[in-house]
């Protein structure tokens, strides 16, 4: 059955470089001696520590609790002792440090008690969401948004289609590919659980057509459990086909409205690895403590000699993974977390793998040619999947005309980097967009602060005016009373 597909605007054909890391089966990474676990590995509020230095913890034990609605707890990836809670380098573009719980492993990898829920069908969706929240599950596709929130369509919203994103469109990254090949059953079972939580009418698994093995594995898993109403669909390999909005458009022909969410058009989209994590949380009672990570390198020369995917416990330093794959960090190389299109350089390879780390990519430090002025060639326009005019955005961002960048819909930019990749003038376009967005956010925050301050000031003036008026009124009253008294007295005298 050939299903109709749609097209998203723009996009690029990129060299995939996927076969390098898919030739060997996935193995477990070595258990590290020390695990460094940032309290924030998701979008939202950081988790609050539940343990103190010196505490013994078991594998899977909750060590930090969610704080606030948009937040998830954190669990110990292995058994051992908490040795400190302190600031350590985290994988973040800023290169800053952030509060982390450090665990020294005891080498036994001993689990805490797990409580599987074999009959999830009998659970209310809200109860299911709660279990997933307690298991610390976030989107594993890269953004790290708490999954339980995305499984909550909200009152009076019907979910028409649940899409599992197995496109994995960025070059070099193959962790989802390998997961689909090796754990298709878990993904399909996770999908069924998610579907129950959302009460979705249809389910589609979208996979780029450069992953025939993964596609076949998923199709077979579906057949095995008789899920005939869930479909696998191959989408053409074109970057960024794995972007949420792009995949939705390709599979359903619908556009997620600007400023809106997929749920506003009846669609929810999750990553395949998230589905597998949901399965393990429900059916095995295992919280999210590990994931598949691609360790590979780009370019010639040194780097990673045995590229592959490893199943990695969170908190494992990236450096150890690179070493396990016969890689060495020689001068002139840099480590990128994520793919070459949307990833960022990690300043310190002691930084740990976290929930959103899908790839550790070692590349030669780019000897970038200097940027030339924009020649308005329009190559970026042709590449942009959001149908923006990147050259105009650049022009105005550079001139700090932030209102104009918003006129040109800066906030519809998904920072996919397609424009910069094709720019003959070698302009780091995305850098300008990030900068402009940051400036606009800062200004808005400041304006809000100023508004609050102004409101307070106005309120105070009004209060003072009121007090004065009250005083005057009392004064006038007294005066009037006095005058009346006098008048009465005078009357008496006369």
């Amino acid at each position: 059955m050939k299903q109709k597909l749609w097209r998203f605007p723009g996009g690029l054909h990129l060299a995939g470089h996927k076969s390098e890391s898919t030739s060997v089966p996935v193995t477990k990474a070595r258990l590290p001696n020390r695990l460094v676990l940032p309290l924030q590995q998701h979008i939202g509020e950081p988790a609050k520590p539940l343990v103190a230095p010196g505490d013994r913890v078991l594998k899977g034990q909750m060590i930090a609790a969610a704080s606030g609605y948009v937040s998830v707890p954190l669990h110990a990836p292995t058994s051992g002792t908490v040795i400190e809670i302190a600031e350590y380098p985290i994988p973040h573009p800023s290169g800053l440090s952030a509060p982390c719980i450090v665990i020294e492993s005891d080498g036994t990898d001993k689990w805490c008690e797990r409580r599987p829920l074999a009959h999830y069908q009998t659970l209310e969706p809200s109860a299911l969401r709660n279990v997933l929240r307690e298991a610390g599950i976030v989107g594993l596709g890269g953004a790290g948004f708490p999954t339980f929130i995305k499984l909550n369509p909200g009152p009076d919203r019907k979910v028409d289609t649940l899409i599992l994103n197995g496109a994995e469109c960025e070059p070099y990254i193959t962790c989802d590919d390998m997961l689909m090949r090796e754990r298709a059953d878990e993904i399909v079972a996770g999908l069924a659980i998610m579907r129950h939580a959302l009460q979705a009418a249809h389910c589609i698994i979208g996979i780029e057509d450069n992953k025939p093995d993964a596609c076949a594995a998923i199709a077979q898993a579906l057949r095995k459990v008789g899920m005939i109403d869930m479909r696998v669909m191959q989408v053409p390999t074109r970057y960024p086909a794995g972007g949420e909005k792009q995949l939705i458009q390709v599979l359903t022909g619908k556009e997620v409205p600007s400023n809106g969410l997929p749920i506003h058009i009846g669609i929810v989209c999750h990553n395949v690895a998230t589905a597998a994590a949901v399965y393990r949380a429900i059916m095995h009672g295992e919280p999210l403590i590990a994931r598949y990570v691609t360790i590979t390198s780009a370019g010639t020369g040194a780097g990673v000699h045995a590229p592959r995917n490893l199943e990695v416990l969170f908190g494992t330093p990236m450096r150890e993974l690179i070493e396990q794959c016969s890689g060495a960090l020689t001068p002139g190389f840099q480590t990128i977390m994520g793919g070459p299109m949307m990833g960022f350089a990690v300043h310190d390879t002691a930084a740990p793998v976290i929930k959103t780390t899908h790839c550790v990519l070692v590349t030669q430090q780019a000897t970038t040619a200097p940027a030339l002025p924009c020649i308005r060639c329009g190559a970026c326009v042709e590449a942009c999947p959001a149908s923006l005019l990147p050259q105009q955005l650049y022009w105005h961002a550079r001139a700090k005309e932030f209102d104009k960048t918003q006129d040109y819909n800066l906030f519809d930019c998904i920072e996919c980097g397609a424009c910069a990749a094709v720019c003959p003038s070698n302009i780091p376009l995305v850098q300008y967009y990030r900068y402009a967005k940051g400036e606009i956010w800062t200004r808005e925050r400041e304006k809000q602060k100023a508004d609050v301050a102004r409101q307070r000031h106005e309120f105070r003036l009004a209060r003072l005016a009121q007090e004065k008026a009250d005083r005057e009124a009392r004064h006038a009253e007294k005066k009037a009373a006095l005058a009346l008294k006098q008048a009465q007295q005078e009357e008496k005298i006369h």
Partner: protein
Amino acid sequence: MSTPSSPYVHTAGSVTTVMLRVIYALLPGIAAYVWFFGWGVAVNIVFAVVVALVCEAGMLALRGRPLKPFLLDGSAAVTAVLLALALPSLAPWWMTLIGTAFAIIIAKQLYGGLGFNPFNPAMIGYVVLLISFPREMTLWLAPEMVSGHSMGETMSTNPIFGHLGGKGWEWINGLFLLGGLWLIYKKVISWHIPVTVLGSLALMAAVYFLIDRDLYASPLFHLFSGAAILGAFFIATDPVTASTTPRGRLYYGAGIGVFTYIIRTWGGYPDGIAFAVLLMNMAAPMIDYYTRPRVFGHKD
């Protein structure tokens, strides 16, 4: 050490690649030109390129800009080659000098150099020469009547900016056309501008040709008279000064075609391409503003 941010891959060539490809695409046409009309044009081209690079280097130095990246970008050379092709092949050296210098110094560098010039520098250079030395621009070439066309009188026989008529021009134009198609194939230019320039020119010509066959030249004549093909593929497509939105390029190209026909047919100058391009250069920012694509997720 600053770490550049993503993306870390760059799939496109550089500005130099783009400009070199434009020059490669012109080479077959130029070779035919030399074959049929002798070395004059080649000498002109080489001289113009040298002048352009010297002017560019001088201006960059005066403006305190780095020399190497901008001299190597190839844009000055492209301007020089196009201007030299627009001049009569026997143009005296000082005309090439003045035109090229004006194009690079005034029309390009004084506006801020690569990427900042609102007008096509080669066409500014050409028009300045045409206005200042109208006699010299047509002096060497005896005006010749094309049978049945009164417009033959207004169109000089300047080989490129005049009309075909002579043997060899089919070849030269045919090879320019081939070069232009190669540029589209290589994605150096998009089809929008050449197709709409030639399409609107042919359409205008067809309408008037049908009205009065004796008074107006045929569409084919218009398409294959010297400047149309070179203009449509190589001059109107100058990215810096053209419209930059996909839809805008359609209007931009159509405008050039229409103005070219009007100036050729009723204007006082031999060919309209240069003026048409400059006129549409002026309109480009406005066209860009009104032809912004519908952004993803914005239903109108």
